[in-house]
């Protein structure tokens, strides 16, 4: 269970200080799958980075299973049980896919285990285990490997930042199956997915809409999802450029 209270993040920019998150209150209960959505630039990734410890908040607190982790390092949080798949995965010269998966799992992996992780993100494992995680991989390949590392880490709370980017339709279903599987195999685990995809919203227990650094809406899927779609249908003109209160879904994708 993660309890986020009044969490704020102010960035220093060339033009001075800018409030990115302006007081977020959110609980991530055990065993729940929460999808966070909302317009680009709303602060979703910033929230995830604060929870993972990659950025430090300017105010508020984060409590994980009763323990205040607001000041804890990335490593401490990872070891306590927080996993995070970056929106923009990182490349490493000389580190192989197998190396990353083993680091994530915290032990040497049998080839067959490593293969299973890659297959679950739609990669043919034999072609990839010995590949370097460098610029020879495409954006989509890198993105899947990023997701596979977080699956291999098997955390109590796993956060995925726009996992659908670069994933083709064929692999999409297996990705969704993978999220479902994670819930079953890791006891009491919760999953947070930042996404614009209708099919991912559809597997949520709860949906959170973040906009302009605040939670605009939060509730059970049944309460939030219809209104997201409903608004888009009601929006006049081109929904892509609509400036409604909530994201807009067109052809299964949500736009700001």
């Amino acid at each position, binding site marked *: 269970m993660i309890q986020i209270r009044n969490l704020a993040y102010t960035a220093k920019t060339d033009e001075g200080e800018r409030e990115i998150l302006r007081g977020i209150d959110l609980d991530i209960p055990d065993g729940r799958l929460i999808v966070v959505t909302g317009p680009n630039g709303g602060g979703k990734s910033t929230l995830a980075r604060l929870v993972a410890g990659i950025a430090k908040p300017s105010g508020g607190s984060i409590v994980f299973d009763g323990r205040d982790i607001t000041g804890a390092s*990335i490593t401490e949080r990872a070891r306590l049980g927080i996993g995070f798949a970056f929106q923009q995965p990182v490349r490493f*010269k000389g580190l192989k896919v197998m190396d990353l998966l083993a680091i994530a799992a915290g032990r040497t992996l049998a080839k067959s285990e490593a293969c299973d992780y890659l297959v679950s993100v739609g990669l043919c494992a034999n072609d990839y285990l010995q590949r370097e995680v460098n610029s020879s991989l495409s954006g989509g390949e890198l993105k899947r490997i990023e997701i596979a590392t977080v699956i291999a880490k098997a955390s109590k709370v796993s956060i995925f930042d726009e996992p659908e980017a670069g994933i083709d339709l064929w692999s999409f279903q297996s990705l969704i199956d993978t999220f479902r599987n994670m819930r079953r195999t890791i006891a009491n685990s919760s999953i947070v997915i930042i996404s614009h995809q209708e099919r991912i919203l559809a597997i949520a227990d709860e949906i959170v809409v973040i906009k302009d650094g605040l939670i605009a809406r939060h509730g059970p899927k049944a309460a939030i999802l219809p209104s997201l779609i409903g608004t888009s249908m009601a929006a006049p003109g081109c929904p892509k450029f609509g400036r409604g209160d909530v994201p807009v879904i067109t052809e299964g994708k949500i736009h700001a």
Partner: protein
Amino acid sequence: MLSEIQKKMLRELTGRSEFGDGAFNIRANGCSAGRHSTKGIRIEPKPNGAGLDVYIEPGLRDDNVSIPVVMTESGLKEEVYNDFHVGEGAVVTITAGCGIHNCGREDSQHDGIHRFFIGRGSRVKYVEKHIGEGDGAGRRILNPVTEVYQEEDSVLEMEMTQIRGVDETERTTKAALKAGARLAVRERLMTGARERAVSHYAVTLDGAGAVADIVSRGVARGDSVQTLDLKIVGNAPCRGHTECDSIIMDRGHIVAVPTLEAADIDAQLVHEAAIGKIAGDQLDKLMSLGLTAAEAEARIIEGFLS
């Protein structure tokens, strides 16, 4: 008799603890501590005793020869001239390298001058490691000079690694390639403390279709200084690529000096160079998988130098 320290360094240099009935020469503190020739590989000391001639028979298939050097005596200084004569069509792996263990107050220095005469159509892999250890005040100095002459359609792959403990090194590698010859160099260099390393490459592509690919990766930590001076000259329709990629840490200092010179309209030469610290997001990622900052840094460097 070899000491335990010498045996350990030999294992590190060559990856093996005995040489059985293969071809080898072990040089320990300036003397030969074992030598063996085979039917296909003949090792002969030079008349003046200052090195070896290694003859590799034409057409030899998949054999190997090791000529490691270890120095454990403080204050020893030596220059050694080794020539490798690789016959036409031979396929061979040559393992060389030098380990200096200096616990004394005086400097120890080994300057190996290696010449490779690589016969037409042969395929050679050359693996060279340099290691320095021991806690004496005496410095460990290695100044290798490598000269390569590649005949038509020969292939040479060189792996050169120096990842710790050499106080001073100035490495000079020169190569001249005839038509269709290919040279691939992988250099790995890590310096720390007050170490100084200079590496010069001058590769001349003289024949049509000659190809050279030189990749040097370095990590400079502590107060160490690295200078990488990579030059390719294209005198024919050829392809040359040099890449110099460095991680800078602490108060390290790195100089990369690329030179490309073309004297043929169909010479295609490319150079890439980059120097930077370890990227913050690389550390963040590995830490988010549970490594400490120090462990993450070590893994990134280990990968980079692999």
